[in-house]
């Protein structure tokens, strides 16, 4: 029997249709939810709610969850390969996505040692600096590659302890929406990752201006969109991360770009 799948948004740990009831067909015969600004609003709310729990988990536990995402993705290689058009390039993309999860899983409990410092200061203080998660991050996934592009931005954001609302590739959203199914079975608490599909031009201004979003990873923005995002993001001084050349490389800086640094002055020797 031919069972046709209904692709849905991944919001607050559940698979839902857009509240607007709209769909579009960007990628073959499938109806894909055309998310609205209200879906976005609900997702930001879910991400905000999930932030305290996720960011307070031990780094080791976060690593285990990211590793499990790799395991779950690994188990569905064939499905993703077909979704991405099949053949060798698609297979390579899935391999790279699995590797990305594993790589950032290893970094969760190393970011502090790597980027944290003890600072020499002229006074009786023990002075140290530590990275802390920024909060709710809006990830604008690149249009291509549909799966790997998102995973490369998503994994580092989660690695540092942020929660995410991700805009899937507009032209090829199926892999991103299916990635939601992978994350739903990866022990990720509901709301930590939310995946929204739909028209960029419709959703971006609301994401960029949302006062409860703390940072935007603008990897998938065109130059015009980036200018638009930066202007709207100024409203609450959102961090806007543009991934320049070398964004494809696995790097702890991808995680640190979405973290804030806290410096503590601790009196000593009085």
């Amino acid at each position, binding site marked *: 029997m031919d069972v046709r799948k209904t692709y849905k948004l991944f919001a607050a740990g559940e698979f839902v249709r857009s509240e607007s009831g709209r769909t579009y067909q960007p990628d073959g015969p499938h109806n894909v939810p055309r998310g609205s600004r209200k879906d976005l*609003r609900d997702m930001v709310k879910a991400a*905000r709610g999930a932030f305290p729990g996720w960011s307070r988990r031990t780094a080791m536990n976060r690593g285990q969850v990211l590793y499990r995402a790799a395991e779950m993705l690994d188990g569905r290689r064939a499905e993703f390969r077909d979704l991405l058009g099949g053949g060798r390039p698609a297979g390579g993309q899935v391999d790279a996505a699995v590797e990305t999860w594993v790589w950032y899983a290893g970094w969760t409990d190393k970011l502090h040692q790597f980027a944290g410092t003890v600072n020499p200061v002229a006074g009786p203080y023990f002075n140290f600096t530590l990275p802390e998660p920024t909060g709710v991050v809006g990830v604008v996934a690149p249009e291509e590659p549909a799966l790997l592009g998102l995973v490369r931005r998503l994994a580092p954001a989660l690695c540092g302890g942020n929660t995410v609302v991700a805009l899937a590739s507009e032209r090829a959203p199926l892999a991103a929406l299916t990635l939601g199914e992978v994350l739903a079975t990866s022990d990720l608490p509901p709301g930590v990752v939310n995946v929204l599909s739909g028209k960029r031009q419709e959703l971006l201004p609301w994401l960029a*201006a949302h*006062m409860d979003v703390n940072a935007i990873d603008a990897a998938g923005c065109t130059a015009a969109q980036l200018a638009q995002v930066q202007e*709207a993001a100024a409203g*609450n001084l959102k961090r806007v991360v543009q991934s320049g050349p070398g964004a494809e490389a696995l790097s702890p800086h991808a995680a640190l770009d979405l973290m804030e640094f806290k410096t503590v002055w601790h009196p000593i020797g009085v």
Partner: protein
Amino acid sequence: MSLTHLGSLMRGVRSVDQVGVEERAAALAKRSIKKASKLWALDLAIRCIDLTTLEGADTPGKVTALCAKGVRPQPGDASIPSVAAICVYPSLVATAVAHLRGSGVRVASVATAFPSGQSFTSIKVAETREALAAGADEIDMVIDRGAFLSGDYQRVYDEIGSVKEACGSTPLKVILETGELGTYDNVRRASILAMAAGADFIKTSTGKITPAATLPVSVVMMECIRDFSRETGKQIGFKPAGGIRTSKQAIAYLVVLYETLGPDWMTPERFRLGASSLLNDILMQIQKERSGAYQGADYFSVD
């Protein structure tokens, strides 16, 4: 009212069509209120709020902060109106009165062994008198649910009467605690009992148990108020309280109010919303309508 009259009054209460009430509430809750109408509704909602803090950990400091917030919910923006009243425990009435003098915001005090109501009538009356002496402008009393559920309507009736007598002209809100009454029929009976005994407002809940205020229960209570007004000409007020946290919920109550009781009741004199965290959500919604951007809790005061 004599025992026989009260008995026949209670026996004469017709039962509630549960499915009909729930469906009507659900249908009204779906009504879409947008843009200018929404801003109007939110403004009215703020003016009807009884901003409440009823915790064991309440301190004069917390009540002072709440009073400041009630008078000027959005510092620096005079277009946001003050709330209707600040609702506190009797021991904190004096603090609230001192901070609200001249502001137009009233002080409501819970009384009568809130929230359980399980105490002696003399103590409940004495508590009411003390709260009034401390300067309360309104009294929120609870009914004795134990007596009501065991069928001792006379006791409930007399107690409300005694407290109303102690209140004199001060408005008395009677809390039915609908979550403990079990059925819509009981809610209707308790509403009629309270209104007959002299309540100026009937109020759904204490906020201490779940379920607190729900829309269907509010429909039932408002219909009682409507019927009572048609029979006696007295316009009794309505106050849902407990669990109302979002602007959307508040607007749903206003829609039900308009559809059941009409525009005469859309005023703080006859409608109140008992709430605490609702106010910030309304401020965020107003700011969203004005600025066009969704708001975050980081930019509003912490309650």
